[in-house]
C-alpha cells in the first residue's frame, strides 16, 4: 500500500482526506495496527510552539522623497541590519533595544508589527547623488511597508536537550533559570507532536514544503543552520539530542500574535516564540512507525549547563513522558522538570492545520529538493589572538 502526494491532494480537493494530529495517530495505530492506519489516514499534522532565537524579518520600507540610502536603521530603537540595498533591512529577533535592554528587542518589534501597532523608524543615510537624504524619522505600520517576511535560519529543531545545573549557584540560560545542585531541569520540545521527530529521516519534509508558520502559510526554505543528521539515534530512529532543523519563511502580513510572540528570557536575552505546523503525508505503512511514536518512546539526553564549555557533561537519558510527569532522577537526585515550549499551543496549531486541510484550504507540497542525507556542523577553532591578523 502506498500513496503519492498527488493522490492525497486529490482527496483533499474532494474533501475526502482523512487528517489526524500527531497525538491522535498514536491511538489510531495502536487500535488498528500500522497497515490499517496507513490505509485509513492520509495526513498527520505535527506542530511546535517554542522560543526560536534564529528568527528575524526582512523588511522593505519603500522609498522616501527625496530618497535615502539607509546605512543604519532602528525600529523602536532596536537596530536592524541594512547592509543590503537602500531601503531593505533584516531585523533579528534577538537584537536588543538601545534604551530598554532586555525588556524589548527585535522579537518585540516583530510582534508589534503583526499586532498592527505604529513602529518608529529611524535611519541614517550615506548621501550620494541619487540618494541625497542623510537622515529620516517616521512611523510605520505593517501595512505601510512593501514586504515584511520572516526568514528564520534555524527553527523546529528535531529534539533538543534537557538542561540542568550541577553548580552551586543559580544560572540564567536560554534554557531558562537553572537552580543549583540539580534542583530543576528544563526541556524544549513538543515531543510526540514535534514535526521532525515524526519524520526522523526527513522523507517528506524538504525544501519547498508548505507549512503553518505563525498563523499563516509558510515554507521550508533551506536546511537550518547547524543542521546535523549524525547525532546518536535510539533504535526507533529518533535522535536523542538537537539534530536536524529547518530554515523557514513566511509573510508577516498574514501572521497573528497568537502564534508569534516575543520572549524576554531573564538575564539571558530576547527570543521569539514561533508557532510551526507541518503536515506529514502517510505515503506508506513504514511512515506509521515514526508517526505513531509517543512521548514514552521519544528519548532525550540531559546536559549539565553548569559547565560553560562547548562539550557539556552528559548526565543521562530520559523520555518525554518522564519529563512531563514533573520529576526525573538525575544521578540519584530528584529534579523538578519544566518545559519551555508550549505543548498546549502546539496542540492547538496541529488542530488548526488539520482544519485547513479538511476544508481544502491547504494542500500538501512535495519537496522540490531533499535536505542533506548526511551532514554535521563544524566548530569554530580560535587560531589567532584578539587584535591579531590572519597572515
Amino acid at each position, binding site marked *: 500500500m502506498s500513496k503519492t502526494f498527488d493522490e492525497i491532494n486529490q482527496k483533499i480537493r474532494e474533501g475526502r482526506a482523512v487528517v489526524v494530529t500527531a497525538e491522535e495517530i498514536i491511538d489510531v495505530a495502536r487500535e488498528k495496527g500500522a497497515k490499517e492506519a496507513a490505509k485509513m489516514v492520509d495526513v498527520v499534522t505535527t506542530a511546535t*510552539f*517554542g*522560543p526560536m532565537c534564529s528568527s528575524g524579518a526582512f523588511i522593505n520600507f519603500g522609498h522616501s522623497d527625496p530618497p535615502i540610502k539607509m546605512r543604519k536603521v532602528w525600529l523602536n530603537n532596536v537596530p536592524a541590519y541594512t547592509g543590503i540595498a537602500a531601503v531593505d533591512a533584516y531585523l533579528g529577533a534577538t537584537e536588543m533595544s538601545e534604551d530598554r535592554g532586555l*525588556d524589548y528587542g527585535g522579537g518585540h518589534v516583530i510582534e508589534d508589527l503583526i499586532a498592527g501597532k505604529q513602529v518608529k523608524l529611524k535611519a541614517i543615510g550615506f548621501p550620494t547623488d541619487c540618494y541625497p537624504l542623510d537622515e529620516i524619522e517616521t512611523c510605520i505600520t505593517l501595512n505601510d511597508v512593501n514586504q515584511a517576511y520572516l526568514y528564520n535560519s534555524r527553527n523546529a529543531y528535531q529534539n533538543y536537550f534537557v538542561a540542568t545545573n550541577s553548580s552551586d549557584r543559580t544560572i540564567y540560560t536560554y534554557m*531558562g*533559570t*537553572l*537552580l543549583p545542585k540539580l*534542583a*530543576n531541569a*528544563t526541556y524544549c520540545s513538543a515531543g510526540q507532536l514535534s514535526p521532525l521527530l515524526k519524520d526522523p529521516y526527513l522523507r517528506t519534509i524538504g525544501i519547498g514544503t508548505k507549512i503553518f508558520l505563525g498563523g499563516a502559510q509558510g515554507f521550508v526554505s533551506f536546511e537550518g543552520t547547524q543542521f546535523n543528521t549524525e547525532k546518536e539515534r535510539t533504535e526507533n530512529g529518533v535522535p536523542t539530542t538537537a539534530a536536524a532543523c529547518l530554515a523557514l519563511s513566511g509573510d508577516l502580513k498574514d501572521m497573528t500574535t497568537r502564534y508569534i*510572540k*516575543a*520572549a*524576554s*528570557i*531573564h*538575564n539571558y536575552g530576547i*527570543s521569539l*516564540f514561533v508557532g510551526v505546523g507541518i503536515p506529514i503525508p502517510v505515503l506508506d505503512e513504514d511512515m506509521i512507525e515514526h508517526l505513531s511514536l509517543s512521548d514514552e518512546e521519544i528519548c532525550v539526553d540531559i546536559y549539565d549547563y553548569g559547565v560553560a564549555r562547548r562539550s557539556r557533561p552528559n548526565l543521562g537519558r530520559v523520555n518525554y513522558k518522564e519529563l*512531563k510527569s*514533573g520529576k526525573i532522577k538525575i544521578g540519584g537526585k530528584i529534579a*523538578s522538570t*519544566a*518545559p*519551555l*515550549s*508550549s*505543548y*498546549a*499551543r502546539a*496542540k492547538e496549531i496541529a488542530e488548526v492545520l488539520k482544519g485547513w486541510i479538511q476544508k481544502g484550504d491547504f494542500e500538501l507540497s512535495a519537496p522540490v529538493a531533499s535536505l542533506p542525507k548526511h551532514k554535521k556542523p563544524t566548530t569554530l577553532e580560535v587560531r589567532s589572538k584578539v587584535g591579531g591578523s590572519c597572515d
Partner: protein
Amino acid sequence: MTKKKVVLTFPAENIEQPITYRLVKDFDLILNILRAEIHEEETGRMVLELEGPDKAIEDGIAYLKDQGVDVTEAARDIELDIDECVSCGFCTAVCRPRALQLDDETRELNFIKENCILCGLCVKACPLGIIKVKF
C-alpha cells in the same frame, strides 16, 4: 486551627518595633516568616503565615492594623494575565512550592494560589512579562 498567609507592610516609624514577638507572646500564634525585606523607601515588608484559632488570627491582625501596619492577604498580590499566557512553562521551572504547574491533561498553566509563597521568582522567569507581584 487555621492557617492564613498575609503580606505586612510596615511604615518607616514601625520598623524598629518587635511586632512578630508580640504576635507570638500576646496572641499565641505560630508564625512562619516566608519572606522579609526592607525597601529603599524605608518601608518594611514581610510575608507571614499565621497559624492558630480563627479568633486569635483575627485579634492578631487587628493589633497589627492598630500599629499602623498594612495587612493584605498574600495571594491577592500575584497577578497572572492568564488570557495572554501561552503555557510555555518557563515559570514552572522556578516555582519550588508548585503554585504554578501545568495541567496533566491539557498542559495549560494553573496557578494554585494557596501554594504561593510570593517569592517573586516567576515574575522574572515569565518571558512574556505577564506575571506581576502587587504589594
